[in-house]
């Protein structure tokens, strides 16, 4: 049995639902925060994710980061040594989707030369009539940028665990690969 620890950076435009997603996951879907509160700097949440068919656990340290540009300098320091990435956008906002490239670039700049598993999350799928970013388009973009993709409606409590399970499993897979490589070093 192994216990892994991963620093998970969460980023995306303001009000796409990053904090709601992180909090929903960490409190097991018991509470959806209806009122918007602006995240300043970073809020850290911790949760253990069991890896299926193993005895291993990945302890995720989720760094829910402010989306407002105002805090970007503070973030640089708090984002040091990341392990996995979660970029969130709002499927009803074209701009929030277009800005994912910028967020991803900033996150990856924190660990140049290191393979960082990541996931792109399209949130607010419950707003069917207002949707402007199509699933296929986002999925392709994610694939081209080496990210996994999933869609959620945190409000309807749909699929909110998926992004974190994807990240924990990717990190665990990476660990196993790396351990195999290390065992070959002389």
């Amino acid at each position, binding site marked *: 049995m192994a*216990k*892994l620890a991963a620093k998970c950076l969460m980023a995306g435009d303001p009000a796409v639902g990053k904090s709601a997603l992180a909090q929903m996951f960490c409190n097991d879907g018991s509470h959806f925060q209806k009122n918007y509160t602006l995240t300043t700097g970073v809020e850290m949440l911790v949760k253990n994710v069991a890896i299926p068919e193993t005895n291993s656990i990945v302890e995720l340290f989720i760094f829910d980061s402010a989306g407002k540009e105002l805090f970007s300098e503070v973030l640089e320091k708090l984002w040091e040594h990341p392990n996995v990435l979660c970029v969130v956008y709002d499927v009803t906002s074209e701009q929030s989707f277009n800005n994912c490239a910028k967020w991803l670039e900033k996150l990856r700049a924190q660990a140049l030369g*290191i393979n960082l598993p990541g996931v792109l999350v399209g949130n607010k799928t419950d707003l069917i009539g207002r949707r402007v970013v199509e699933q296929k388009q986002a999925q392709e973009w994610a694939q081209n940028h080496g990210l996994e993709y999933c869609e959620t409606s945190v409000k309807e409590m749909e699929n909110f665990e998926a992004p974190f399970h994807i990240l924990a499993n990717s990190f665990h897979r990476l660990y196993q690969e790396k*351990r195999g490589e290390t065992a070959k070093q002389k």
Partner: protein
Amino acid sequence: MKLRDPCLSSEGAEVILATSSDEKYPPENIIDGNSETFWTTTGMFPQEFIISFHKCIRFSKLTILCYLVQTIRIEKSLSMDPVDFEKCVEKDLHYSEGELQTEEFSFPDCQATYLRFIIKSGFDHFVSVHRVMVDGMAEDM
């Protein structure tokens, strides 16, 4: 007084703390005398481990065999308990892909009952420590 490496479990040394745990790669592997076995870190930095000699040892050279370690800090304590650590050295190691890092540190006449190794960062998510060797001898307490 013996001239063997005191940093071996067979000589009474023990790893009393390690911040990562995977039962396949236990911290005891650092002091088993075999560089093919290792202790691995399992995620976020910093990471650390503490070796207890259970006696005072006097040494002049320390060698660590590791993989993908970027910044390491070594501290020592002369107390009976693992407290009051003092810095011995802090160093940025070179990246060497495909082979273990062998890093030698010289200390003029150093004494310790505990050694603490803090790995502040790595060249990858996970790093490993294969051996710690000490050129020294046990002192009579």
